[in-house]
């Protein structure tokens, strides 16, 4: 039995707020109001008001719930940048109804479409009958949106960052490389980047062959264009990026990389320049905070 906290008014508003997010439960409340309300601890007056409400306004409350569900699904689908191209809307709707079926009245789920798209992708991967190709695409979408979610929650300003690639050449010990902390580096089956590219371009991905090997993808804040960008990187580049993010300054990073890999300074400079141009990183004067 749920005991909705607060006074009777708070309880009614909270109960309706929870219900309106789930048309299945609204139908249940309308079809068998007494049985439904028996599951809650509430005063008789509040119970009678709710019985009257479902009797007189139940149809519109259900319609409102259905409209909300459609908008919520539309926004989630919009956030699934690759997945929305391989699943039909009808199938995603069926999955979403199943997802809601598994979501109880007392589960506090974020309704932010980016955040909920992550939960929805995880749900489809674990509970619906999808093949390996579909799982890869859903994993790609949820990883990308996890980075986007962290970017959305980042309240810092970056007014002092330097986006000029030429800066790489001057004063390397006074410059720190900034790679946004939301960055995610993840292994996917080899062929994933080709698969994603084909789907994004609305081209056939029939020719994409997955091998048993792996490829590494980096999902990062795009400092040039905004949003999240993805790059396929080699194991050496992954190491390079991790050292860049770790080092106290660009000069320090060059020293560490040169010591570890023997790579010449000019080569390192050219790689960092490419990273700046692709939007992976920017610079900041050593000692400055983000703001």
């Amino acid at each position: 039995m749920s005991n909705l906290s607060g006074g009777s008014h708070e309880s009614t508003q909270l109960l309706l707020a929870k219900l309106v997010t789930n048309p299945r439960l609204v139908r249940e409340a309308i079809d068998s109001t007494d049985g439904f309300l028996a599951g809650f601890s509430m005063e008789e007056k509040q119970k009678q008001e709710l019985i009257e409400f479902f009797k007189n306004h139940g149809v519109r409350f259900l319609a409102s719930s259905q409209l909300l569900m459609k908008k919520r699904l539309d926004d989630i689908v919009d956030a699934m940048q690759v997945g929305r191209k391989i699943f039909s809307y009808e199938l995603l709707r069926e999955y979403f109804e199943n997802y809601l079926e598994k979501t109880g009245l007392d589960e506090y789920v974020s309704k932010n479409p980016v955040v909920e798209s992550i939960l929805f992708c995880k749900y489809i991967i674990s509970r619906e009958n999808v093949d390996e190709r579909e799982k890869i695409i859903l994993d790609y979408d949820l990883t990308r949106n996890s980075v986007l979610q962290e970017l959305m929650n980042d309240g810092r300003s970056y007014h002092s960052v330097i986006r000029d690639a030429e800066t790489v050449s001057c004063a390397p010990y006074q410059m720190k490389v900034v790679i946004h902390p939301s960055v995610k580096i993840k292994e996917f089956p080899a062929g994933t980047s080709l698969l994603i590219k084909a789907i994004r371009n609305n081209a056939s991905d029939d020719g994409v062959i997955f091998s048993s090997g792996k490829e590494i993808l980096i999902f990062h804040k795009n400092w040039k264009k905004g949003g999240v960008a993805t790059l396929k990187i080699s194991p050496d580049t992954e190491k390079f990026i991790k050292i860049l993010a770790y080092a106290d300054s660009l000069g320090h990073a060059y020293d560490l990389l040169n010591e570890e890999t023997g790579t010449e300074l000019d080569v390192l400079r050219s790689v960092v320049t490419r990273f700046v141009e692709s939007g992976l990183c920017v610079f900041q004067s050593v000692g400055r905070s983000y703001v």
Partner: protein
Amino acid sequence: MYKKPGRNPGVGINFHHHFAGDILRNIDQIDFIEVFTEKFFIKENDETLSKILENIPLVLHGLDLSIGSTGPLKIEYLDNLRSLLAGINFEWFSDHISLTHENNFEVGHLMPVQFSEENVSKISIKAKEVASLTDRPFLLENITYYYPIPGQSMAEESFISSILESADCGMLLDVNNLYINSKNHGYDPIKFLSKIPVDRVVEIHIAGGSFKHGMLVDTHANSVSTEVWDLFDEVCNRVPFNGVIIERDSNLDRLEDLIDEVNIAKKIMKNNGIYKSNI
């Protein structure tokens, strides 16, 4: 004491990321722009939006203040809002008389609140708190609602009026919401206007809706209906507002369709002798 803005920016649109370049190219036809407040909480550099704001005035419109929640305003949201209002040039800012979360449960849309004296008091206190963040006007908008919350003790117009007077703030009058509510709940929108403090109306919203589930629905995904244009014409006669925003959130293939509606609004205002007139 509430002071109405002296400026009358004219007719604008809400910002569309997908059409940012088109907005910039058509900037001479758009008098001002409305951007979701929460967009600025994400510290992204949007160069096109920055260029738009170099050319036309900005008004901020929030979705997630949730002033109708039973509990207090969220501290994190207020902090973000305070920081934004201090660092950006804008004409006024607004949000809705509704809730988007209750007791930490996210609803995911603008949910109606119970029309009651208790809520007038709670919402007014919070509105004063928000208004105190800046010297620019804070407006509250009437929402579309499809069902009343049980236990109501006030009519919609009394509820809205009491909040505006008690909080001493401005109003964003959504003409489409007024039209939809009047049809769905069976009242006369003109009588409604006669019962609210229209001198507090600063901004007007105009949008399109559609008929679904046996009722009119606020979709922001359709063209503005003739009935809503007619009601706007009446509003021009009766309400001394400052500016109009044509809202469209989806189902828009060309910005030109929205610009056409901007021009219709301008024409109606010109016919009433109020386009960019002194307030």
